[in-house]
């Protein structure tokens, strides 16, 4: 467990109360199993608003215990002071006399976290401090989450920017060549730059569409229409898109789906899932290869298996498959284009259906994807 000591400032004009609180908290240790932390306090004290003003300039405090009525002002003035001067995270507990309810409400508005009503004993102090400490750790953890989220977003955008910049740079380089007439005056001499530019534009369009798919799944605001879908039909449509590519490489796509197999799911998600998997099974296949697609229902589960006879995936590359923008680079894949988002889309969809996805593969022999979705 991590031992952490936090600064705590007690502000009260009564000597006895300052000494009492100090005695209670001085050697007090609080164990928070959830946060893997043992927490204790280093206690400072001040008798007036003026004194505390000086102390907070010298030390950073995470906790304050403040008497509402002070000789040279009140607790709310002190809270306002903190608001203005202090940047770190802190929690303030206010001590108030009985029947000062309106004041208490005001203090809450000014950022007091909790209240202790006079007269109080060690237990009231300890329990107020316990609550504050727990909340403090929670705030810290949330901050870390936020920072993580920002970092992940930053990384995503950096890679995306790179992915968008590459085709633009390539196309602009080709245009520069054409503009400079580097290959002579005849337009026919420029077929290659033109074809390559168009390819890069198509890839970029694909990337943008994949990105839209990805965010569509992630955003919860879209209405997610669940309807009865015939999987055979989905497969038919999918084949229409990928048959041309398959024909070029003489790849046979076989599928075994019960014609009456109906599932309750979101149509566009199931289409994306099937399309991306078939696309990969064709793209990363060899000439004269095969793709076998089977789907079956088992209780509440829809099980899909896609087997291809393609280039396969090396063991140490497997864990990268589902990461955004990750593509495997080797001799076999260097002429195959893609944005590296297909399987991240598939993974996100599988998660939507509380499902699982597993890969078995042998380099040069082929790959099997096992998908199981919970279809209620």
């Amino acid at each position, binding site marked *: 467990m991590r031992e952490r000591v936090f600064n705590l400032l007690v502000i009260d004009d009564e000597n006895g109360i300052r000494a009492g609180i100090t005695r209670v908290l001085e050697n007090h240790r609080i164990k928070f199993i959830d946060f893997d932390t043992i927490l204790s306090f280093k206690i400072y004290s001040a008798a007036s608003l003026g004194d505390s003003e000086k102390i907070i300039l010298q030390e950073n405090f995470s906790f304050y215990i403040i008497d509402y009525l002070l000789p040279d002002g009140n607790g709310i003035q002190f809270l306002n002071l903190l608001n203005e001067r202090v940047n770190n995270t802190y929690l303030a507990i206010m001590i108030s006399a009985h029947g000062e309810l309106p004041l208490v409400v005001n203090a809450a508005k000014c950022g007091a976290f909790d209240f202790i009503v006079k007269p109080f004993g060690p237990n009231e102090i300890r329990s107020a401090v316990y609550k504050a400490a727990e909340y403090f750790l929670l705030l810290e953890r949330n901050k870390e989450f936020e920072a993580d989220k920002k970092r992940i977003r930053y990384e995503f955008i950096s890679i995306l920017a790179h992915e968008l910049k590459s085709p633009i*740079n*390539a196309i602009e*380089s080709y245009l*520069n*060549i054409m503009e400079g007439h580097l290959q002579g005056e005849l337009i026919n001499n420029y077929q290659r730059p033109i074809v390559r530019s168009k390819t890069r534009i198509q890839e970029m369009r694909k990337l943008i569409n994949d990105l839209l798919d990805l965010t569509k799944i992630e955003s919860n605001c879209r209405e997610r229409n669940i309807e009865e879908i015939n999987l055979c039909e989905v497969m038919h449509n999918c084949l229409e898109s990928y048959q041309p590519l398959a024909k070029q490489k003489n790849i046979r796509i076989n599928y075994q789906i019960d014609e009456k197999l109906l599932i309750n799911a979101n149509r566009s998600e199931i289409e994306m899932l099937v399309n991306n998997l078939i696309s990969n099974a064709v793209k990363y296949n060899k000439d004269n290869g095969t793709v076998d697609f089977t789907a079956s229902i088992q209780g509440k589960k829809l099980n899909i298996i896609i087997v291809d006879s393609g280039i396969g995936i090396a063991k140490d590359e497997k864990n990268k498959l589902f990461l955004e923008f990750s593509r495997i680079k080797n001799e076999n894949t260097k002429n195959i284009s893609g944005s590296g988002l297909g399987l991240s889309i598939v993974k996100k969809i599988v998660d939507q259906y509380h499902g699982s996805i597993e890969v078995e593969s042998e380099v040069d022999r082929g790959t099997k994807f096992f998908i199981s979705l919970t279809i209620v």
Partner: protein
Amino acid sequence: MAKILCIDDELDVLESCSTILKSKGHIIKCAGNGTDGYKEALNFKPDLIILDVMMDSHTDGFHAAYQFRNNEKLKNIPILMLTSINQISKLKFNKEKDGQFLPVDEFMEKPIVPQKLLAEVDRLLGLKEENINREGVKNVY
């Protein structure tokens, strides 16, 4: 006319460089990664190497640059490094801290502009041996 080796994992960069340099009569060889580039360099004995940072494989381009400088036969070949805007700073390569500075002779940003590329190539081909940046010099970038 010179022999120039282009190393980049992006087909279009290789094609653009080749087209531009061939238009001035240079002889071009291409390689798709640092390892192949190094092998090719030993055979081809180029007068100049154009090397991409190659973000996709992290520090492949940097690694290749050091490899060239550590080979007796290759260490005096000028290197022109291609980058994309903001690219260098993003890589986990801390020039200041590690005291490592890229041993390359010039940086050039993509997209490729023919006149600029040709001018740089001419300048680097004329570079004297003692002016080759073999160690990596502080204010090169």
